[in-house]
């Protein structure tokens, strides 16, 4: 038996179908206009979950990159300062060797002593160097790490390890303290040593200078140690930066795959829906026209 079709039924179901078509048309259009496939969680719950976790990952990754950049700059600055100290120490050593091997007179020894004192000032300014107002070699403390307090060279910082989180799991220590670098921790600090060397030069104490030469070698060893630790930190940071860059590309493409509209597909879908919508309109227009009344006379 065929179904009885009434006019009201035909109109209502045609209108209903048409508005269903229009609403899917509108959805596709919105997706195209925003470029996003997921606008609320209910659009795609699993996708939203993934998108939110990828976004959190992206934020953490971007922060890790900022941390790494900041850490790399810090390490580089400290390394440059310590490089100057190494150069200066070599010069001091040369001067002492010269003083011991030559038959320099008191004036010449005085000139050498003056240069040593000058280099001591350079070391002090390196030790107390700051980056954006913050001492490079004093741990957590805000004061200059090295100062002459009542005639005694003192380390005024602490042993705080400054760290940077450069990835989810990797935390790098980026500082060395003047305590270690300049020998305060070992009880023979570089600055007192230079004072001694200066005195020895002025007094022509050859035997004393010999002992100081050994002490200078140990001082050089400490600075080189510190530089190698900074170098290791620097390369860990570089590796982490590289990983973070790769990770960012990965995460971005994941996010795009989850969230973004496939343009080609969406445009095609829009076309199809437009055709379907027009077809529904055309069908309704055709279905409503004929009436038996038009044929009865």
């Amino acid at each position, binding site marked *: 038996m065929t179904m009885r079709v009434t006019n009201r039924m035909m109109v209502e179901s045609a209108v209903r179908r048409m508005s269903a078509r229009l609403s899917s048309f509108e959805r596709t259009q919105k997706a195209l206009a925003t470029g996003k496939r997921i606008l609320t969680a*209910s659009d795609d719950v699993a996708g939203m979950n993934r998108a939110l976790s990828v976004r959190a990952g992206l934020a953490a990754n971007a922060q890790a990159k900022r941390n790494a950049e900041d850490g790399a700059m810090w390490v580089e600055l400290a390394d440059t300062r310590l490089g100057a100290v190494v150069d200066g120490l070599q010069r001091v050593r040369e001067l002492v060797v010269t003083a011991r091997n030559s038959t320099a007179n008191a004036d010449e020894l005085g000139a050498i002593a003056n240069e040593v004192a000058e280099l001591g000032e350079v070391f002090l300014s390196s030790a107390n160097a700051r980056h954006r107002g913050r001492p490079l070699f004093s741990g957590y403390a805000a004061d200059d790490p090295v100062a002459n307090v009542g005639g005694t060279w003192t380390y005024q910082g*602490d042993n705080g390890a400054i760290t940077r989180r450069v990835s989810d799991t990797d935390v790098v220590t980026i500082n060395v303290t003047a305590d270690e670098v300049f020998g305060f921790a070992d009880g023979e600090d570089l600055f007192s040593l230079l004072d001694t060397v200066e005195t020895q030069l002025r007094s022509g104490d050859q035997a004393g200078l010999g002992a100081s030469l050994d002490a200078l070698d140990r001082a050089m060893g400490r600075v080189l140690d510190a530089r190698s630790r900074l170098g290791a930190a620097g390369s860990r940071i570089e590796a982490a930066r590289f990983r973070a860059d790769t990770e960012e590309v990965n995460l971005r493409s994941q996010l795009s795959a989850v969230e973004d509209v496939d343009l080609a597909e969406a445009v095609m879908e829009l076309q199809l829906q437009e055709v379907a919508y027009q077809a529904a309109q055309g069908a309704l227009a055709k279905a409503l026209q004929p009436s038996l009344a038009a044929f009865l006379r």
Partner: protein
Amino acid sequence: MTDFSALHVALSGLRAAQLAMDVAANNVSNAQTPGYTRQRVDLRARPSRTDPSGQVGLGVEVTDVARIRDRFLDLRYRGADSALGSVEVRAELLSRAELILAEPDAGLTAELNELWDAFEDLSLDPPDRASRIAVINQLDSVASRVNDVAQGLTDLRASAVSSLEATISETNDVLRRVADLNAAILDASARPGTPNDLLDQRDVLLDRLARTVGASFLDEGDGTVRVMIGGISLVAGTDVRELSLDTSTLQILHPSGVAVVPGGDAGGYQQFLTQELVDLTGRIDQFATDLADALNAVHATGFSTSGPGGDLLTYDPTAPAATLRVAFTDPDLLATASSAGPPFPAFDGTVATALADLRTQPAALGGTVSLEESLRAIITDLGTQTASAQLGASTQRDLVTAADVARMATHGVSLDEEMVTLMEYQRMYEAAARTITAVDEALDVLINRTGVVGR
């Protein structure tokens, strides 16, 4: 009526055709009237008279003008529409709740990510005043976003409650009109014929009651219907028992004091208000508590220049999400260092790092998941509920459409059909009129021409 009863017989045909055309005209006129049921004349042959030569018919009579209505189709439509009301209301309210959370672009997750970044920036340069102010500002943004969500949910609750109240009051109004129609139909039953228009009107109201509260109906046999929810009568004959809403417990009460369990729109509002919204509000409150407690616990381990770290965020435990606030505005009070000194380790950012580490540490829901994960679970669970309600609504809408189409197919007016009917009865009318003419001519012959042979 022995002689030429054909005159009367033809007259009965004439009258029946006239009436049938009236009914067809009424059908055509009401083709687009909502709730109108097509009508049909019920014809019956009159009892015949006994002629010595056999039984001769005495024409036609109209026994009733009846509605063509299938009770079963009504039942199916109302059941489907009641279920649709419930799920559609929930889908609508749940998607409004989703908009309040405003994920993923303008929601809490983005603010939270920025908070961890702010803490981490602070750990890079702890004494930096700009970084400290940025942290305080970001804490404030997070807290006000949580407040906004709490306020949005409160507003949503108020709006749903007032919609529920409106639904109940509309229902009461409809119940009164059903009782009035019951009275009118009872009254009309004393007269011959079926009160079709009153029945149509009442059916529209019963449709409405199924939708608003999921009421069910029982034909009482005397023309009246009994309206019930879960076996509790709301209309019995001409008596009305109006429903009322207890706005604190959200129960819908019958005058007897019994709480009825409604379906339809009211059921949807009730379920959303007493289950989904309560659950969501509770989880947002839990998140606010977890966030504040976790931040405060870590901050308390740190030191600022003025001593140990106090609370970062405060809240009133009776309404945590609505009352979440930043505890202080002085950026110097941020406790970033792990020891107090002296000397104060100004560049010690250990505690700022520890605060930033809450990004991934399991600090929420009793230390089982991270704050970000707990928030994500709230969002995706709400998304799942919304998506399933929307899917349910779309499926149910198809069922309602099918039921409605089936009903319209039976109850509705087909214009072509009415045209044919009109034409049929027009012909019948013409034929009956022609019969009268024929009988009239025969009588003319008998009366005026008979006995005039040779005149």
